[in-house]
């Protein structure tokens, strides 16, 4: 018996709206269809009537996990258009934040992978330790997510000695814990049984379907923008590109943990080499006409912004390609012939960031019961009634 199951847009395995329609026979998937569009917000159009400064914050809000990577990619490109040379110290701080963000993103992913596999203890421990890096980011930038540290021509906040010491302490803790999680992830039998051999993607397929980031690297294809097109400080620090050749979800776990360890290394080098001086230069309001292609290695893979200016204070065109979109064809390939139970794992293994891809998949809701769609006016009236009946008490304390 073959039937179709819808996954999403509201589904516990997905933190974001996307819809996958799986045709399954028993427990085996025979067909996959992805429908994007639930998360499509029309950002590229919006960017055309915002000025260069406003757009930093707009692109930052493409994604809440790799917010810094979008902002940096954009700022890098605009700085080239405006022919600005940010001071060294500013660049070092910018890429320190970007490596810390990679750490936060990979830790987050590691926890989510545990959660999707039903390994809740692992999830809880990883997320507990992720709070360490969140605290560091908050310390540097003033907010846990959406750091807003980039500005045209440099960064907005400087580091002082106390902060540097705290970052160093945090990195020591994180490195120790990451090594421990590597040990767990590679040794816990029930976890390994779930992820080994699942979601196979051969190197040939990965190349043909233009897979990016850790997905491609786990298939043995060593591509990393930081190495092949080193921007800013990456030709001054020493690091390796992590790869694995098992081509499955286990490989992707291994790649990400290895990248974590590389990131700690980069962070320490950045802190060691941090030069004194200014952190930013003043940026003009208008950019010269021109175009630029800006590439950046986000935690999920290559991030690419194409920016075209027409000489005004607003961009003519801003094209954003987030890594997740590039991984969808590969995901469809990986899901084929898998089990229902593997869907969340495989899907999580590309570390999907649907808001990044800013498009989305066809949803059918979880509940199949008869629904009458209430009219908007009706709902609004109800809301008003509720507001009137239930005023917020001053200093209302939750009776515990």
């Amino acid at each position, binding site marked *: 018996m073959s*039937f179709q*199951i*819808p996954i999403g847009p509201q*589904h*516990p*395995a997905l933190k974001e709206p996307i819809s996958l329609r799986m045709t399954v026979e028993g*427990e085996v998937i025979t067909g996959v269809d992805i429908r994007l569009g639930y998360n499509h917000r029309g950002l590229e159009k919006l960017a055309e009537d915002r000025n260069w400064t406003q757009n930093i914050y707009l692109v930052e809000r493409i994604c809440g996990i790799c917010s810094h990577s979008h902002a940096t990619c954009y700022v890098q490109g605009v700085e080239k258009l405006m022919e600005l040379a940010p001071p060294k110290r500013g660049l070092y701080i910018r890429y320190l934040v970007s490596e810390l963000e990679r750490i936060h993103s990979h830790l987050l992913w590691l926890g989510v992978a*545990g*959660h*999707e*596999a*039903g*390994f*809740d*203890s*692992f999830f*809880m*421990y990883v997320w*507990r330790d992720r709070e360490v890096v969140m605290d560091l980011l908050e310390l540097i930038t003033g907010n846990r997510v959406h750091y807003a540290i980039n500005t045209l021509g440099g960064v907005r906040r400087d580091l002082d000695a106390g902060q540097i010491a705290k970052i160093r302490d945090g990195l020591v803790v994180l490195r120790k814990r990451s090594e421990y999680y590597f040990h767990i992830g590679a040794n*816990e039998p*029930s*976890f390994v*049984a*779930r992820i080994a051999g699942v979601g196979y993607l051969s190197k040939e397929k990965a190349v043909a379907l233009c897979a990016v980031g850790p997905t491609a690297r786990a298939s043995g294809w060593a591509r990393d923008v930081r190495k092949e097109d080193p921007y800013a400080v990456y030709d001054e620090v020493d690091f390796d590109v992590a790869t694995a050749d098992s081509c499955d979800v286990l490989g992707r776990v291994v790649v990400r943990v290895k990248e974590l360890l590389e990131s700690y290394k980069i962070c320490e080098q950045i802190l060691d080499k941090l030069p004194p001086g200014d952190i930013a230069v003043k940026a003009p309001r208008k950019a010269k006409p021109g175009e630029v292609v800006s590439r950046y290695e986000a935690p999920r893979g290559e991030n690419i912004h194409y920016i075209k200016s027409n000489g005004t204070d607003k961009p003519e065109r801003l094209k954003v390609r987030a890594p997740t979109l590039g991984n969808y064809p590969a995901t469809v390939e990986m899901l084929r012939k898998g*089990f*229902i*139970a*593997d*869907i*969340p794992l495989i899907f999580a293994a590309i570390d999907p960031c649907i808001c990044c891809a800013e498009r989305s998949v066809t949803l059918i809701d*979880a*509940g*199949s*019961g*008869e629904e009458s769609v209430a009219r908007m006016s009706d709902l609004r009236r109800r809301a008003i009634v509720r507001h009137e009946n239930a005023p917020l008490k001053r200093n209302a304390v939750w009776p*515990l």
Partner: protein
Amino acid sequence: MAVVRTLLYLVVYPGLLFLFLYSTFCEWFDRKVYARFQNRMGPTHTGRFGLLQPIADFVKLLSKEDVVPEAADKRLFAVLPIIGLAVVSTAGLLLPVWNFDLANPGWTSFSGDIIVMLYLLSLPTLILFLAAWSSTNLFSTIGGARVLTMLFGYEVPLFLAVLSPAILANSWRLAEIAAFYQRKPLLLLPNLLAFIIALIAVQAKLERTPFDIPHAETEIVGGTFTEYSGKKLALFRLTFDIELVVSSGLLAAVFLGGFPGGAVVGFIHFVVKTLFVIFLLCLLRALTSRIRVDQVISFAWKYLAPLAVLQLLAIILLKGFLP
């Protein structure tokens, strides 16, 4: 007088009311220990130490709107939670906590009650399957199919594992098995392997990680319970809690030497031993990740069942050497 006593047995202690309270306590214990394993607090602010948390959940669910899907078989949909609750509560009555007096057994203790107990404990699985099937939701249907598939995996190892202490004790009555091991506690040791097998099988029966496949929320949303809400969900949750108590009570009675010592001491034995079993189950839950349904079946038939048979053989041989 006898009627009143029987009624008291049925309704208050050790019947429904006691089971209800004790099972909510066990759920709290389970959640709290699970949270502490994960370096969290767990329920804290509901009642003292969050003890009332399961009761709050239960009452809240009772007071919620009850939605029945249009396409579902309404009568079946409504009646199944009640049957499930009745079945596990009946199984609870068979526990040898209160009929400790061997010479004068109550009517709830009879030869062969261990078989009845195991049978009653496998009924909730079938009810769960029916519940999933009758709600006609896609995810529930998949959940229901997984429930049945898993049943074939864990049921045989569980039966075989519980059989081995019974054979050694030469009885089909729970109270007698318990009494036998109270006399010879050392003989509990040969059954250790069976105890582990039974623990794993009970974990699967209760659908807890790593066997929470039928309602794996990241895969098939709510699984079997996707369409249940309000009162019916409350009853199902209660069913699972009571099943947790009853099966841990069964394991305690068969593998840990029962609950000797009269009303008060026996009760303490009961609490300590069931909590110990629940602790082990909770540890198992925190320790593992969910596996796939095909892995459950192959694990059960490749390792659990042969080991259980081996254990059975060893016990029979041992019995030959015993005086």
